[in-house]
């Protein structure tokens, strides 16, 4: 198998902040690799280094065999980059934007026009192509933002959280686009902090935290890291923080975290531990209003590895 991207001990420091600390991931040609991690994990910094926006403090990376340090232009020509924040000209139409970005990738004339038509078809905005981008909804902007990276049919597409802050319909459209592009042979490096997206799309997932890759594997391999543990989701009638520390002390609980009023607890044996959780809640003056015993997921994996929730 050929390697589309090969990161070799990438480091990035911003002054005292060590944003990326020795990442050596590889992306196989034709696969989808997801970088999954909480805010500030270093996902965007890695992408900035791969796409030539930032110089690595240390290490190197090869994109289709081209070193980002020594042959940045060649590396960039193989890449399509979808930035995390929408990077389009708001006062130009969708079509004008795409024509311009196509030219920046060296496309011209009839070939450019044809390719813009194709890409508009892919993102489903043929009807709205003449509209100014600043008049578009968030989801439509996101789709144009992606389209601009596809014009030159790059071998590798890097997408940095392409579904942030949009409606479920647009999100569905984008995820289907990614799968379709991948089916046609495009390699995708995808970053997200939505575990469901990583689970649905990826051949491999790299979980990142504090600038390091803390786990790498297929979805199933990662889930197995949690071992025989069971995940219990509980809801409370009071603020989750009141019982969280108490529950973390309960025997048989390996990890507990709270977010959005939902407490996730990893336990060895739910039959044995559940009554103790009720006792501890009562002692803290809280009442449990809902209990769900579920299969472990990537959220549970992250909790298992770090003791924190993915979306803090």
């Amino acid at each position, binding site marked *: 198998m050929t390697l589309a991207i090969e990161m070799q001990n990438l480091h990035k420091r911003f002054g005292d902040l060590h944003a990326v600390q020795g990442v050596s991931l590889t992306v196989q040609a034709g696969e989808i690799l997801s970088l999954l991690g909480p805010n500030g994990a270093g996902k965007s910094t890695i992408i900035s280094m791969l*796409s*030539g*926006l930032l110089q690595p403090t240390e290490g190197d990376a090869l994109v289709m065999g081209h070193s980002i340090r020594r042959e940045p*232009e*060649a590396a*960039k*020509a193989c*890449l399509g*980059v979808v*930035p995390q*924040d*929408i*990077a*389009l*000209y*708001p*006062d*130009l139409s969708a079509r*004008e934007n795409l024509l*311009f*970005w196509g*030219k*920046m*990738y*060296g496309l*011209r004339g009839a070939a450019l026009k044809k390719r813009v038509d194709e890409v508009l078809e892919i993102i489903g905005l043929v009807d709205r192509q003449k509209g100014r981008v600043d008049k578009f909804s968030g989801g439509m902007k996101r789709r144009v933002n992606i389209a*601009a990276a596809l014009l030159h049919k790059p071998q590798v597409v890097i997408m940095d959280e392409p579904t942030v802050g949009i409606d479920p319909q647009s999100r569905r459209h984008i995820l289907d686009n990614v799968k379709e592009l991948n089916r046609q042979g495009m390699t995708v490096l995808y970053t997200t902090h939505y575990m469901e997206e990583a689970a649905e799309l990826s051949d491999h997932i790299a979980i990142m935290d504090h600038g390091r890759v803390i786990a790498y594997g297929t979805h199933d391999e990662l889930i197995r890291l949690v071992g025989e543990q069971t995940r219990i989701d509980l809801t409370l009638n009071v603020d989750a923080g009141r019982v969280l520390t108490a529950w973390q002390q309960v025997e048989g609980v390996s990890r507990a975290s709270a977010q959005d009023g939902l407490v996730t607890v990893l336990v060895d044996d739910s039959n044995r531990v559940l009554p103790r959780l009720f006792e501890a809640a009562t002692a803290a003056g809280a009442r449990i209003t809902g209990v769900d015993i579920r299969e472990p997921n990537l959220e549970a994996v992250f909790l298992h590895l770090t003791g924190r929730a993915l979306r803090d």
Partner: protein
Amino acid sequence: MKLIDIALKDMLRSFRSLFAVGMMIVAPLLITGLIYFAFGGIRSEQPDIATIHVGLVNADVPSADVPSANVPFNLGQMLVDVFTDAGVADLMTARVYPDVATARAALERQEIDVAVLIPTGLSAAVLSGEPSPNTAVVILHDPALSLAPQVVGSMVTSLLDGVAGGRIAIQVIQERHAARGLALAPAQISTLIGQYQTWYTDFLHTLFYNPTEAALRLVAPGVDETAVPMSQILGATMAGQMIFFAFYTAAYSMTSILREQEEGTLARLFTTPTDRTIILGGKFLAVFLTVILQGAALMLFARLAFGIRWGRADSVLLALVAQVIAAAGLGVLLIALVKNSRQAGPVLGGGLTALGMLGGLFTVGIQGMPAFFDVAALFTPHGWVLKGWRLALAAQPPDALLLPFFIAVAMGAVMFVLGAVLFRRRFA
């Protein structure tokens, strides 16, 4: 190629922005227009100037009463000659009527706009230096007209003043001679008068060589004879506005790089296989092209709207090139020193206005500014660009513009290089 694509994209964005077009083209025209109308819309009377119909009634008789001279002095005929002179032919038509009654009738029928009535004894009265109400030249005119009577009146006054001046001159000469116990021979006096008449006719020729210009000079309110003609004031005012907004436009166009940085499109450009030097080059090219287009458009509109004659094509080209390079240079440098587009606003508004003031852009029509401003203007690119335009507007040949041209271009080039180096450090 990508360089041009980037520049064209920037220009498309600029010219699509109402605000930008307003500041680039509408504002300078509007301001000059306000000044233009404040002075009463000079050109609307121009057709009037071109067709002044003058009627003349010459009742004067040549005066032989020149002290010791035998040449008759014929002031009435000189006045008639002034109006029938070929030099004023495209400004006015002149007809001589036999008496006042027929001239009045012609005025009532509107065959003529102005009637000039030359009284009997005018020559004698002027020569003696003792004019009376009976010997005054009377100008009758259609009350609806204001410009034509002024023009005619001024021509009459010029001649009479000139003759009176000549009389005094001859008197002084005679007195000097008399004081030394000499007397002028009659032949000498007649030669002197002959010479004076020749000189004075020439003088009037020169004065009315360009009748339109002379007429404009007469009607410019509050402007005395030595002042710059109104058409030139309007041209210089427009030049001042054009220069100010050219500098503004250059800096505004350059801020697009800051906006792109904030919009994330600059970073996206950097992820494409495009050399950063080319990206910067494209942005710089957009600045130059925008200022060139703006200058050309303003000159054209100003020509059409206000009839401003910018000067000889080669001189105009020099002035425009100086303006483009100076404006682009300062624009690039200013924005290189600014962190973000929010900071750019006050820098453009405040900094460029202050520099424009020092450069004299807003005081072009005002005479007798404190000398400090003349000196200050030498230190601003604006001042030198304005000097270039003033010379071009005065129909000077290109070599007259070389000094301001080279100084403005040198200032612009230095600032551009500095700015480009700063931008390269920052982005490339």
